[in-house]
């Protein structure tokens, strides 16, 4: 009997040990650190987006280790992290309690992420994803999106999406004034023909009329509660198109009539998101749209040099939205040119939240605000890892920039609509 009991005891212990080895010991949570311990910051956003989309619990730990994510510990998330080379750490109850205590006592906050936003990118149907920093980042991170363009916007498809991205579209309809330099280039001729055909197809007299209407529909999308994220020239021209809705702001090379000489005075800035009292560039020969952009990269006499920009540190518990948008493992980031690189402070509307600025410069880099029931965010420049991008340059390979702090700002914007709104503590 004694022997039997020893055998049973031995057997039971052995069985437990084998089972324990066979079943992975699962932590209650996975921490995705976003400080320098993270080996692939950009893919970490894709992992978090996937977690939210698949219904797993997810939290954004603002200011905690570079803006880390706390995810449910599931085999599929572990598998994806392993495939993508994303650093994850197991968090048991004790560790979780420590993290929550640290968050409670510091300028940190935990924001639940609940619903993966439906993402649309406004881009021509034949565009490759490699010429737009946002589509580059979305592709790299594995975040799905739908490309739509003028036909879809005019047919009311924007209402199907939560989040819309614009990049280097010229909403004044002047095709970024590329006519000045590229009028004989086959790609420009093709661009002109396609846009002219689209305008006719959709019942507009010319390209500027079509683009102004598209801009108006984007404005309405935000007003109804949409999230807008724009970069590069789309920021400036969207505002000009909205303010100049009833004014001829296009040069004769594109619509056959010169710009209204009193256009500046007739602009209606009450309807725009970010800017006011900007002055239009009157010359058809100057590759600039207005004085909104501080850097004027395409105007030789006016071009300003690149510096660095600094992200503001917001109070996470009181300004969770602004905090989400600036989560990063670096606070000072190298600047980069775009058709519109920065935004002059002198034309910002009161109430615009400045997220990043260049110290001592008259411009800011990254701004945000509310409009109607929605929000908008503008990030100047074309590609955070290609500071002087030119037409025809090879695309950026993000596998070489997987820890890019500049690209993180883009992906912050993608996740931010997933956050559950908490009542402000103020």
């Amino acid at each position: 009997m004694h022997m039997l009991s020893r055998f049973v005891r031995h057997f039971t212990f052995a069985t437990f040990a084998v089972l324990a080895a066979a079943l992975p010991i699962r932590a209650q949570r996975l921490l995705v650190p976003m400080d320098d311990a993270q080996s692939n910051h950009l893919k970490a956003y894709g992992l978090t987006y996937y977690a939210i989309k698949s219904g797993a619990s997810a939290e954004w730990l603002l200011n905690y280790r570079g803006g880390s994510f706390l995810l449910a510990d599931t085999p599929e998330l572990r598998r994806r992290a392993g495939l993508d080379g994303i650093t994850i750490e197991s968090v048991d109850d004790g560790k979780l309690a420590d993290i929550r205590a640290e968050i409670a006592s510091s300028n940190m906050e935990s924001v639940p992420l609940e619903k993966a936003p439906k993402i649309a990118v406004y881009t021509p149907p034949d565009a490759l994803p490699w010429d737009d920093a946002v589509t580059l980042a979305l592709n790299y991170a594995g975040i799905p999106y739908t490309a739509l363009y003028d036909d879809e916007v005019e047919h009311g498809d924007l209402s199907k999406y939560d989040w819309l991205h614009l990049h280097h579209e010229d909403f004044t309809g002047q095709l970024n004034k590329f006519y000045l330099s590229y009028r004989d280039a086959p790609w420009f001729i093709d661009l002109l023909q396609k846009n002219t055909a689209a305008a006719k197809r959709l019942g507009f007299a010319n390209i500027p009329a079509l683009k102004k209407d598209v801009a108006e529909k984007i404005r309405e999308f935000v007003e109804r509660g949409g999230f807008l994220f724009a970069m590069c020239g789309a920021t400036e021209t969207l505002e000009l198109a909205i303010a100049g809705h009833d004014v001829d702001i296009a040069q004769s090379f594109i619509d056959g009539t010169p710009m209204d000489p009193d256009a500046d005075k007739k602009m209606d800035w009450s309807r725009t998101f970010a800017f006011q009292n900007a002055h239009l560039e009157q010359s058809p020969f100057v590759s600039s749209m207005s004085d909104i952009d501080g850097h004027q990269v395409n105007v030789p006499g006016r071009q300003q040099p690149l510096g660095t920009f600094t992200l503001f540190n917001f109070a996470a518990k009181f300004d969770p939205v602004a905090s989400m948008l600036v989560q990063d493992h670096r606070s000072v980031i190298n600047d980069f040119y775009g058709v519109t690189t920065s935004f002059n402070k002198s034309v910002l509307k009161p109430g615009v939240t400045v997220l990043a600025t260049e110290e001592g410069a008259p411009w800011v880099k990254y701004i945000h605000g509310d409009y109607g029931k929605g929000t908008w965010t503008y990030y100047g420049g074309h590609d955070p890892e290609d500071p002087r991008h030119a037409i025809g340059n090879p695309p950026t390979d993000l596998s070489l920039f997987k820890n890019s702090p500049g690209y993180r700002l883009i992906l912050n914007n993608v996740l931010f609509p997933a956050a559950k709104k908490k009542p402000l503590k103020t």
Partner: protein
Amino acid sequence: MAFYKALDLEAAGKYRDAAPLFRTAVHTTAAVNALLGLERVCAELGWPDSLVTLLDTLITQNPHEDTYRTVQLRTYQTLGRDADVRRAFDVWVHDAPTSATPYREYARLLLQRNQTAAADSVLARAKQSLGTTSDLSLELAQTRAAQGQWVPSAQAWRVALRSANYLEQAAAYALAPAPSSVRDSIRQTFLAPPIDVGGRRALADLESTWGSPADGWNALEDLPPDSAAADAWSEFAKQAEAEERWSIAREALESALRWRKTPDLSVRAATAALNAGDPVAAIRLAPPMQGDSATVAHDYLPLHIRALAALARPADAERLMTAYDRFLNPAEHNSLTRTIAWGWVRTGDMTRARAALAATGADGDSSDAAGWLALYDGNLKTARALLRGGTESTPELAVALGLIARLKADTARAIGHAFLALARGDSAGAASQFVAAGERTPQVRSLLFLIAARIQSATGHQPQAVALWTRIVQADSATPEAPQAELDWARALRASGNAAEAGKHLEHMILTYPESALLPQARRELELVHGAIPPNP
């Protein structure tokens, strides 16, 4: 004479002393050169304003001297007197109504100041006044490039290069920023008939700048053979040789040889052919073994010996060497003997190979070649010692050393024979012998299978390669070769268009071997499979 003394003082950096002497010389027969000297020293001294009155006088005295007018434009520009620059230009045009020179000089000044639109206006005015801009094609080309009008710029460059082919590098530099979307149009501009050597050379430079030297050869290959074309081919080949693009270099040098058959070109062409893996062509292109025996021995013999060894004709190589041996120093003799030993290896006659090496004495016995011969014999102990301390660094050597290091035994004949078959160029035989050796040597089976799989894959025998990768992944999953085999397998699948299967293997490899040093490569492959990053150019 004041002018020469002024030059000496200028060369000595004594500008203050040189200036009055240049000023004196302006009134002598060296007036033009003296004025240019005075302009230089005034620039150094910060005295450009002191030229204004003098230039007015000189122009009044000799209104047809273009240099005076040009210096006047430059002086006003330096002084920031833009209105005076325009006025001086207008006066010059008035005084020389049929000359292109005023327009050229003024347009150049404007281009230097990035005033592209103003330069364009000057050129438009020239066309209106002169009826043509054919004498202003360089300025037109620069203006169009600065405006981003790449094709009109290329057209103007083509015209400019007809009379000044030394501008080819300037043309390539100016057109280099053209976006990829217009590059085909630029190519067509330069390639359109009739053929101009200058334009084609500019296009070849441009293609190199754009990262495609192979396309550069397309710009040059159909030049009608003459001395200018031969120069272009030879110059192009020089660049290709420097970049070790041997096939292109060989083509260019063969073309040059058709017009100008010199021993130097022949040696270069044969060397390029040999390095490109074509020993037959090397023998055809090499200079004949004729002429001064010492020169032949030093300059041509090594080339012939290398080619004959590569063709597995070591007996012919030996005969040739015997004929010229007395002109060779011991180092040259030993070097060529080792080359001949390689030739014997390629024929499979190891006895003769060893004999050849032995003839070179201690130098031969301790050489890389001796190490390889030991490996072919299966003598791992000797091979280990010689190859480790050798001077060679090739992928083949890395594989061989890796293999030897993992084997405890001092002999392994089957493995030696497999390497020998590979050295002889018998890929199929080598693959099957590596497999056979692997079956008999379990401790390095996975490595031998991996070598065999790579040979099979490289020679297009994918089913055989897949069978070997499968065996490694399934039967030897704990070896370092298992992740490598799965990565090779996935790459082959992706190359054949089967991205879905490639993705499965990559995922399996990444998740099964999380500590593998190959993970970054595997993740990159997976990103390419998923379209997460731009495809490789």
